[in-house]
């Protein structure tokens, strides 16, 4: 079945450490790619998105993601995390042939220790 995979569901790290969250998808053809974040008690909000062009995209709060088409991946990175980055992170994909439907990964629960 076509899907979106996120690895290492729980991630615990200290402030100032670097963060990388992997996302792989299995849809062929053109896709739109998103990372969403859900801070504790808040609604999901967009972190960044990729539709075309430069495969390295920058989002809010110092996050960036790199689209590697040959690897069907869209990994999220932040060089130095803060306690306020504690949240759940979701990768999402819209395949061209699926209208506006988003397929979500299972999420990464990230805890940053002060």
């Amino acid at each position, binding site marked *: 079945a076509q899907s979106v995979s*996120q690895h290492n*569901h729980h991630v615990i790290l200290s402030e100032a450490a670097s963060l990388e969250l992997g996302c792989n998808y299995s849809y062929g053809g053109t896709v*739109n790619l*998103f990372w*969403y974040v859900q801070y504790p008690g*808040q*609604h*999901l*909000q*967009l972190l960044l*998105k990729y*539709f075309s062009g430069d495969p390295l995209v920058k989002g809010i709060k110092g996050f960036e993601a790199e689209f590697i088409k040959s690897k069907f991946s869209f990994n999220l990175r932040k060089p130095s995390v803060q306690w306020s980055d504690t949240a759940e992170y*979701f990768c999402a994909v*819209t395949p061209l042939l699926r*209208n*506006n*439907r*988003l*397929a*979500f*990964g*299972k*999420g990464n629960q990230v805890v940053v220790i002060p």
Partner: protein
Amino acid sequence: DVKVTQSSRYLVKRTGEKVFLECVQDMDHENMFWYRQDPGLGLRLIYFSYDVKMKEKGDIPEGYSVSREKKERFSLILESASTNQTSMYLCASTSDRYQPQHFGDGTRLSIL
């Protein structure tokens, strides 16, 4: 700023009840979605609607139905609530596939 409003933040119902979850968006978006969010399972699409009175099944539609009588409002209906429908329900809307989906705060539904 886009606002997606879900009618209840918390809801407790009994097994067998008919349950209505309401969602309203204020940005004239054509597309609206209902998801459920469960720990370790991420977000799973229940139903979506791309226009008034139009709907399409998502990945887990069993036990649910939807209604879209007006463009701004999308209702999720649990015909006969069961305990395995205890979950967080999220509504979202978007204008098109090139725009991000905007999410409501969610309704945490408990079925006893």
